[in-house]
């Protein structure tokens, strides 16, 4: 079956094109206005960054991070409070990275060393981090006026610095998954845990690495998002984890780990961005957006599963 083979290889590209056309027609061409395309990238930078980190986590064997949205809020809140108290933008950024690394290390250690299920750990830390963030914010929305910070993370000088950060994160994930030795180990661990352990791969080290990577990326996306908006509110990042997970699954990452490509994740993130953007242009309320995202999430995993099963049957 040639058609099926073609579908199997290119279903991602095909769905990207068809969904783009769908929203293009539904929005009467507004999707491709210059401003909207710029918005698409600006508003969904976090999807690209977080999906890169989430991809590495899922690859290690279906481990996930539900807490990254809350972590973005917490890290942003810490940075803004620091700048409010007179610390520089650069120092704050270093602290953000440190906090992100620490959160990632704790996650990685609990999940890798103690073998706790990632879903429980990150669900718990989702509520812990959100709670701490709200305590720091005290229910208020903070804004930032630090020159360095804004120059680093927003478009003030005409050159979009934040774009460099997105590119950096995505290429780091590409490098890890495609070229670095540890990437091979990650794939091996996700593909067959027992075999990987017997062949001498240090499981704890890899999972801790994956979560620290995720933590650093969470910090960077916090910087980029808060820099662009200039504010941190109590509800910042509530949907981020879902978007990142959806991007990974749409991109063909296996939910059990060990399978998937960064190229697919980039496409998945793009698709998530277009869906977000398209639904906003169409004026759908956040509630319906959530419904559709939830359905897409399950559908993406389901279609990946069905296509793979067909492929195995043919062989």
């Amino acid at each position, binding site marked *: 079956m040639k058609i099926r083979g073609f579908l199997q290889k290119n279903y991602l590209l095909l769905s990207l094109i068809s969904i783009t056309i769908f929203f293009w027609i539904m929005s009467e061409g507004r999707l491709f206005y210059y401003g909207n395309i710029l918005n698409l990238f600006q508003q969904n930078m976090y999807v690209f960054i977080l999906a890169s980190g989430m991809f590495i986590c899922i690859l290690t064997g279906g481990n996930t991070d539900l807490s990254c949205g809350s972590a973005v809020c917490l890290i942003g809140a810490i940075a803004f409070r620091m700048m409010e108290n007179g610390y520089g933008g650069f120092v704050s950024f270093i602290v953000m990275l440190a906090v992100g690394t620490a959160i990632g290390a704790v996650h990685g250690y609990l999940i890798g060393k103690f073998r706790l*299920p990632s879903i429980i750990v990150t669900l718990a830390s989702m509520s812990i981090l959100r709670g701490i963030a*709200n305590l720091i914010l005290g229910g208020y929305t903070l804004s930032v006026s630090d020159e360095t910070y804004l120059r680093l993370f927003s478009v003030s000088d005409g050159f979009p610095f934040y774009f460099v950060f997105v590119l950096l994160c995505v290429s780091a994930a590409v490098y890890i998954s495609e070229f670095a030795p540890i990437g091979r180990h990650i794939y091996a661990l996700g593909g067959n845990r027992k075999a990987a352990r017997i062949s001498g791969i240090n499981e704890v080290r890899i999972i801790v690495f994956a979560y620290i990577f995720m933590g650093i990326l969470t910090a960077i996306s916090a910087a980029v998002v808060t820099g662009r908006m200039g504010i941190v509110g109590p509800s910042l990042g509530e949907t981020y984890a879902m978007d990142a997970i959806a991007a990974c699954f749409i991109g063909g990452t296996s939910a059990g780990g060990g399978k998937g490509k960064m190229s697919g994740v980039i496409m998945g993130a793009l698709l998530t961005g277009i869906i977000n953007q398209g639904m906003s242009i169409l004026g759908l309320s956040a509630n319906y957006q959530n*419904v559709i995202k*939830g359905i897409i999430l399950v559908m993406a995993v*389901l279609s990946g599963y069905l296509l793979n099963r067909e492929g195995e049957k043919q062989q």
Partner: protein
Amino acid sequence: MKRILKLYSTEIVFGFVSLLFIILTGAEILKPMNITAIFLQNSYIFILATGMAICMTSRGNIDISIGSFVCFICAMGGVFMAVMKLNTGFTIILLLILGLLWGCLSGYLISYLKIPAWVTTLGGYLSFRGLGVALINTFSTTGSIVGIDQSFMKLFSGKIFSSPIDSFGQGSLLFCIILAVSAITYKLYSLRKEGSSITNSVIFGCALSFAVSLVIGVSFSLTGGVPVSFVWMLIVVGITQIWIEKSAEGRKLIMLGANPENARIAGVNVKRAVFMTYIFMALCATLTGCIVLSRFHASSSYAGVNFEMDTIAACAIGGVSLYGGKQRILKAILGAALIGIINLGLSLIGIDMNWQWIIKGIIIVAFVSFDMYLKKDRYE
């Protein structure tokens, strides 16, 4: 020492934390009104924890969609009764059908199509919250649909053996005593049937549970009757406990959790068993939705927020293993009671919501780590 910790970790922690809250609140928490409130305000955790314990028993499956599903059921109940003017019986049937449908769908996706439980239920978590809030916003401008049937409210949030608040209603106390006596008789009877001797610890346990039910009974008597949600909780817990201990299906479920490969070889239909647990979970969530709906007197978009956290925390405290294979429904119930005490205690002390989130998160991580520590040798 490790053995005692292993056997009685839930009870020990329960004792310590309740003592802590009794001291912190200056015994305020022991007032009859507050003891009743533990059951009134937190009945949802008890019912959901039973369902979740069953889900987890079958090889560590989990359901994080329950909070959102409760919201959805509330919204649908409001739409059926207040907007479409259906009567109570018909509404309940429709809601049960909805629960059954979601149970079938999620169960099918998870057990037959092998989509990881967390992905499926994450989809449900997003969709049902969105759908519920969207429904409420469509049919009302105030964020809640009012106009729930009186008979519906009586069925899910009324009181039985009701008596005036300021007098002592003997009916409630009698009800609790009869329940405790019959539960203890049942326990002793089944022990004798198994041929095990009645040790001191069994007698101590029976005496303790009798004392506790006496306290609960007195509290109910002084606060105007037994809440119906308490009765619902007893029904769900009782049936589930007897079913999982005595029936062949229940034993199969435990076996499946302990070792899926062995269970499969022994002829357990693994897929069907997992499928059934999700139907059960969805039905528990539906019942919870009904109780929450009638407690709020309206379908509110805040119904069910963070229920999944409380439920998972209750199961974690109860030592329901996330790798399956242990039947600890009663301990999960104890865990649910502890979460209830924590909820009530923290609000009595006047600590704000954010701290509650932090404390609950830490509780979950601590208990799951502890559980893994105790069983380290088993999984190495």
